[in-house]
């Protein structure tokens, strides 16, 4: 046998390298395929299970179980949460124990969501809304672990986008023809699945059974929108993630530690370049933050609009509000998961630095900082706090790339704070004004009392732990031993004690009154409108129009009456009254519709109300206050 010459060895080496690259690419493609298959498969199975065309009836029959099962699951979930808090979950030395507790909690919630479907029909769909992003993150962590974080998130985003399109595209297939959401089809289907309450014949004010049917009917569209929102959020997160070379940091550190002015200048320039690079990437992040803000605001305003819809369809409003809150919760979980766990695991947090390290930090740490990074390896693959990383085949490969993923939390939050709506929200969230304090008291008192009670119990457990040498509870510092509550809760209580309580409580009273006016005042308005409708519908169309116009104007002059209720009344009242006089079938109805819409919008000039108050402007205008005089 002859030894291969240098050329042959180079060829062999090149072939091996090519083969390794091919294998790596094939493995990554395989991972993407597996991820896609799992996500699309789950979405597809979910669509089948919760569609009236396929297995929706079977699912509905199966989920109609006694309510105590759901209540017990919820109680178990609450018990796990309370026990984890009391026993200092975050200080447990065993990761397996922590994961076990989280798994148990998830299990309890899943069982609750599934078994409570008969009383809260939006929960099973909510399970999908909450579960899909968590499934995506789990896939990113385990299946796509060899991908840079940004690419993994982008893969998930593409998957969510495809899921969104698939769900929307499948809508006609699922719900057209004999499964269309018509009254007859509903009645048949509900009777088939054993619902006795099938009295739903008009509007959207449905029973729980019909709400479930309605949710099944609308679920592909709702889930499509939700998946689209997730796709947007994940794209933004992936855009915010940056790769920063530790060697660049090392160069800056070394340069700054040198004595000569030239070297210091060099170090400063390097630092400035790093800053410039960050600014460049902030432009992208700014766009991302804008879209993220828009997505979050979209969901929140959807909640508001759903509440405004209440007079026309209480159940629909309720369902939309529940689903929107679940979507918000899921987005929050994704953000916390990304910015919390990722940042925590990617940076040697024992050093107390932010990531990326600033120039002064690199200067103070010198070479220690890049060495710490090198010792830690690509942090997204490294468990935090010195835990055993186990065998990670991608770790070496990732490290060769000498780049570290940075979650971009600071940049994203900084860019988000530049958004007008986010700043507006945060300005109202400051607790140094009476209204915010009152809102906190009004909304949070029951929870705060519970929190204080749990904090007292937690402190007692810590004392016990110290006395008995328990390793899983936090070791109390000598200064904390005399506290009745945990240090954290004591700080909160001290902060609250400084509030001007008389003013705050009076404001709480006004908030409660406002809740009454807005919530029950609206119901009384609708009752008044319904009385008006029943009274006017037998009158001549002209009289009915005049009377409705007069009453409508009066309603508009009352602060709590929403405009939508008046517009809706116009259609309900005037259309049947005017249909006959306007020509009957087939065109009379449409002319009456337009007439009602026009009357709700404006009025013809001859109506007497236009001259009710020909106000002499000077008589009623403010006495030219400086605000107005200033223009």
């Amino acid at each position, binding site marked *: 046998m002859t030894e291969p010459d240098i050329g042959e060895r180079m060829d062999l080496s090149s072939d091996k390298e090519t083969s390794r690259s091919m294998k790596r690419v094939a493995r990554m493609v395989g991972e993407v395929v597996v991820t896609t298959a799992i996500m699309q498969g789950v979405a597809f199975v979910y669509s089948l299970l919760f569609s009236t065309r396929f297995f929706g009836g079977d699912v509905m029959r199966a989920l109609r179980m006694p309510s105590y099962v759901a209540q017990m699951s919820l109680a178990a979930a609450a018990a796990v949460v309370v026990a984890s808090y009391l026993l200092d979950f975050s200080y447990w030395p065993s990761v397996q124990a922590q994961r076990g507790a989280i798994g148990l909690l998830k299990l309890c919630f899943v069982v609750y969501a599934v078994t409570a479907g008969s009383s809260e029909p939006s929960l099973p769909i909510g399970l999908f809304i909450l579960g899909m992003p968590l499934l995506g993150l789990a896939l990113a962590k385990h299946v796509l672990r060899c991908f840079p974080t940004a690419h993994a998130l982008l893969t998930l985003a593409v998957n969510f986008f495809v899921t969104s399109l698939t769900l929307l595209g499948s809508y006609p297939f699922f719900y057209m023809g004999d499964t269309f959401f018509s009254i007859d089809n509903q009645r048949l289907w509900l009777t088939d699945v054993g619902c006795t309450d099938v009295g739903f014949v008009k509007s959207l004010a449905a029973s729980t059974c019909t709400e479930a049917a309605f949710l099944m009917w609308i679920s592909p569209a709702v889930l499509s929108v939700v998946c689209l929102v997730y796709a947007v959020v994940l794209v933004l997160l992936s855009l915010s993630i940056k790769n920063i070379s530790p060697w660049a940091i090392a160069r800056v550190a070394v340069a700054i530690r040198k004595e000569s002015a030239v070297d210091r200048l060099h170090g400063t320039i390097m630092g400035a370049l790093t800053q410039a690079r960050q600014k460049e990437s902030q432009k992208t992040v700014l766009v991302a933050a804008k879209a993220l803000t828009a997505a979050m605001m979209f969901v929140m305003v959807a909640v508001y609009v759903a509440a405004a819809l209440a007079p026309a369809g209480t159940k629909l409003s309720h369902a939309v509000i529940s689903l929107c809150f679940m979507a918000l919760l899921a987005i929050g979980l994704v953000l916390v998961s990304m910015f919390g766990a990722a940042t925590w695991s990617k940076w040697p947090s024992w050093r107390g630095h932010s990531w990326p390290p600033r120039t002064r930090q690199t200067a103070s740490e010198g070479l220690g900082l890049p060495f710490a990074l090198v010792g830690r390896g690509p942090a997204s693959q490294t468990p935090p706090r010195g835990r055993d990383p186990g065998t990670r085949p991608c770790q070496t490969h990732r490290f060769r790339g000498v780049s570290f993923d940075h979650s971009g939390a600071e940049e994203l939050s900084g860019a988000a704070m530049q958004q007008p709506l986010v700043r507006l929200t945060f300005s109202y969230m400051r607790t140094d004004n009476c209204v915010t304090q009152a809102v906190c008291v009004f909304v949070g008192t029951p929870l705060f009392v519970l929190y204080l009670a749990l904090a007292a119990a937690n402190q007692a457990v810590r004392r016990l732990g110290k006395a008995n040498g328990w390793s899983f509870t936090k070791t109390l510092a000598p200064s904390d031993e005399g506290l009745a509550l945990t240090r954290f809760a004591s700080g909160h209580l001290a902060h609250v004690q400084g509030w001007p309580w008389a003013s705050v409580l009076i404001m709480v009273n006004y908030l409660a009154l406002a809740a009454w006016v807005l919530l029950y005042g609206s119901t009384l308005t609708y009752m008044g409108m319904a009385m008006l409708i*029943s009274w006017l519908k037998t009158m001549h169309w002209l009289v009915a129009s005049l009377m409705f116009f007069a009453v409508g104007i009066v309603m*508009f002059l009352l602060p709590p009456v929403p405009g939508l209720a008046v517009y809706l009344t116009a259609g309900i*009242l005037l259309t049947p009254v005017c249909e006959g006089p306007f020509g009957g079938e087939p065109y009379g109805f449409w002319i009456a*519709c337009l007439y009602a819409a026009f009357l709700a919008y404006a009025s013809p000039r001859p109506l007497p109300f236009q001259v009710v108050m020909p106000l002499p402007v000077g008589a009623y205008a403010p006495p030219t206050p*400086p605000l107005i005089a200033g223009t």
Partner: protein
Amino acid sequence: MKLMAQILQQKGIGERLGSLVYVRTTVGVNSRLIKAIRLILERKGLSLAKVCVLCGGPDWPTAVLTGILGCEVSQMLLGLSPIFMLTVPTSMAGAFQLRVAEDDSWAAAASMMLLLASCVQMVLGLLMLYFIEEVKTHQGEQLDAFEDDAEVAAQDAKAEAEQKAFETATALAEMPTGAKALLFGGTGVMACSAYMLMLITSECFEDFALTDDIDDVLCLDCPRAAIKPLGFVALGMLGAGILCLVGFNGWAARKVASRAAGAALL
């Protein structure tokens, strides 16, 4: 109707209220928020921001605010003219709901119309918030150019002093037990009544939609009675809370007045 209501709310309510310093102070005409709204509303023509504020804002407060700020009626009507995007689909939804029993497709059409109206309202509301904050952020100089209302500024200063006097007089450490009981007990009862309304509405009151028959609910012991037994409890608690609030406010006013008189004597 909406346009007519705008005129009446603006001229009949807003401008009358605007002549009262107390109202202008309460509205906060010197605040940057209101100045930003004013800047948007006073622009001539049909701008998107103006349309969003007038059509996307809550009906009564927005219309009355235009009167308090002394805005031009014709310009407000111009800005409000796209409100047909809300009135038409909503009225149509009402009309369609009446025909649901005739044909299935009317139910879907009614739902679609309601959803369309909701989307329009949602987008306009969102844009309103955006434009107001955008003006506050990027057009600060123009906002600063608005002179402050001197009367309101004086009233603000007076109110601030009164608030300080109130907080001093009602400090918990100095408050007698009876007043504390009125304040804490009343607030507790009032808050509980609101919680009942918000959390267990269906146990207290019957849900009511515009298409429901009013005769079904206007009774005391029928299956769909508008107010259920727990509802009466909630209303009773509301009444008790209001009495406590009035009682505490009366005590606090006397306390503030007596402290002021004592200070004047000194």
